[in-house]
């Protein structure tokens, strides 16, 4: 199965290990992973700032890089949410529509397409707080939302619970936003930092050693807050745990 890999701009720059783990993980499951070399960004920073029109050229480049692939996978819920739901700056050509529809967030892809259940190489004997970003939770619908009465389900937990030794803690507010929110994290810094501090304290209070998420942006923000508060929490992307990272 051929999979085109989209590595968001900030993961490329700040969290290359997440990208590496994603490649290795997909290859463990027999995927042929292709990384189109001219990719840059999905357009989200412009779109979320109100400058959708300035995202058009970036989105066109995205389509040029990824057209023709049946599966485009990215280890970033917020970017995939933007691609599937907000890539509307340009004309909705058949190519653009196909690229949008074929883009998957990593957990979605593993759970729904590859339908993997086992990660025999993985072991993570730690107490873990699972953070579902708002994009993956409410837009990509990878888990039950607390506002809605619906049967419990959680794609990331379904994957992680097969990892040897892993133990989930329960935060008091499992799906309250952590406050990253894109440029919000600097334009509304007081509230953003307060939200981040509350989030990491909640996990810490309930026994977490690690916070794991499918979104590096949330992790980056929470780690920033936790380190400033000297909480001793560690942060890791779901791709890394599933790929066998030990710590």
């Amino acid at each position, binding site marked *: 199965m051929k999979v085109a890999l989209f590595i968001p701009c*900030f993961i490329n720059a700040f969290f*290359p290990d997440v990208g590496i783990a994603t490649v290795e993980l997909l290859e463990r499951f027999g995927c042929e992973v292709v990384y189109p070399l001219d990719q*840059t960004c999905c357009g989200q920073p412009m779109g979320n700032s109100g400058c959708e029109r300035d995202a058009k050229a970036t989105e066109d480049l995205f389509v040029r890089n990824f057209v023709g692939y049946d599966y485009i996978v990215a280890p970033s819920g917020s970017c995939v949410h933007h691609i599937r739901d907000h890539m509307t700056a340009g004309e909705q050509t058949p190519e653009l529509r196909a690229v949008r529809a074929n883009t998957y967030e990593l957990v979605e892809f593993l759970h729904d397409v590859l339908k993997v259940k086992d990660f025999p190489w993985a072991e993570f004997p730690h107490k873990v707080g699972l953070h579902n970003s708002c994009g993956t939770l409410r*837009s990509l619908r990878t888990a039950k939302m607390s506002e809605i009465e619906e049967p419990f389900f959680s794609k990331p937990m379904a994957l992680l619970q097969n990892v040897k030794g892993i133990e989930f803690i329960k935060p008091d507010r499992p799906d309250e*936003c952590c406050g990253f929110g*894109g440029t919000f994290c600097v334009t509304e810094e007081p*509230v953003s930092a307060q939200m981040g501090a*509350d989030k990491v304290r909640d996990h810490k209070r309930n026994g977490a050693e690690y916070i794991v998420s499918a979104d590096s942006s949330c992790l980056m923000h929470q780690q920033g807050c936790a380190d400033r508060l000297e909480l001793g929490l560690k942060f890791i992307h779901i791709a890394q745990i599933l790929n066998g990272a030990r710590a």
Partner: protein
Amino acid sequence: MKRVDHVGYSKKFIADEKHIQFHDKRLWALRTDRDTEVHGIVEWEELRSLASGIKEHTLTHLADYLAEFERNATSNGVVVHWAKDAEEHNRIVYDILTNRKAKVLVKSKSMLTEECEMRPYLEERGITVVETDLGEQIQQLDDEMPAHIVVPSVHKLATDVAKIFSRTIGTDPNESRIPALAEAQRQSTRPLILNADAGMTGCNFAVAETGGVTVCTNEGNADLSSNVPSLHIASIGIEKLIPKLEHLGVFIRMLSRNALGSPITQYTSHFRGPREGGEMHFVLVDNGRSERLGMEDFWYSLKCIRCGACMNTCPVYRRSSGLSYGGVYSGPIGAIINPTFDLKKYSSLPFASTMNGSCTNVCPVRINIHEQIYKWRQIIAEKNELPFVKKEAMKVAGVVLSSPTLFRAAIKSADTAVAILPRAVLYNPLNVWGKHREVPEAPEQTFRDWYLERNKK
């Protein structure tokens, strides 16, 4: 009009630890009380769809339903007035009062009258206006706007209220026991109601089929204000219309459950006509609502039934308080309504959001709040009212990110990646990140570099 400084206000609010902790906790409790109550109703999601469908239908036939409502109200003996804007609403109310030589008006909670700034208008012209709702009265005595549409003084602690009451209604400044404060307000307000010339209520739902108005309250002040004086005026936003009495079954089941986690308000009052010897007036108010109905991306906001649940669940609202939004309507609903009143003044509100979508999930009438917030950002940018972002720099970012070579030139190494962060894009200095957070370490190579290296092998 100067732009609302949500950031500045929120910073002050957050610095007051006691207040923000209580505020966040109290409103989160309303959210969890709501969850417990509504999750016990098997048909809740179906009710949301029905409520949304009834409102959408009504709004697409609003002129006809308003005409039907007026016909029925008039034949019930009610005098129906129409106000195209806030100023006209205030003038109509003033005229009704002066025609009856009314000098003292007692009123229950009405966000519409706040929106119209009715109180200062009437007070300037010699009418005494008494807010009888406890939370509204606290805010009136403290000369502040309501901070929440359901619990207007939610941001205040009992000690704050004690101070306010001691300087206005003469209670002991050290008496901050809540039952004593509530009793003091009851005792001081009752005589005002008995001596009032007229009473005013808002309106939660206006039923076209009956020509009547439904008001949902808890304290008894609305029923006192409307049943003691012989003149009753109800201010009604035109979007409050619903077609039939039976539709109240849906909305009354939902309103208090979603707002407070309680099955119903203590009083669900239905006003159809004046009592013998009395007078009843309805004032139907547009004030920008018909314009909003014509906005393809935003007319769903007219479905709002003012439950406040979006505020309770909003993590930004809970940590900044309603007063930081600078308007009568705050939180998520405020962010999508207020820009229609004044785009420049409220241009910061759609950015006081992480677009997390929790508000949309709790909205009883399925308003797509967080999606409208995204759309407002596009309009604000188009009209050159971006509060934080340098629009020209966004253009540059758009150019750099659309060109692989320019992009790679900009990130020659992982270190320089820091430069691509929006220092040039935002008006805030980059070290804003570092005020309460550690800055991430820059890794040795980018992912792309690693991939190319691996492929060489």
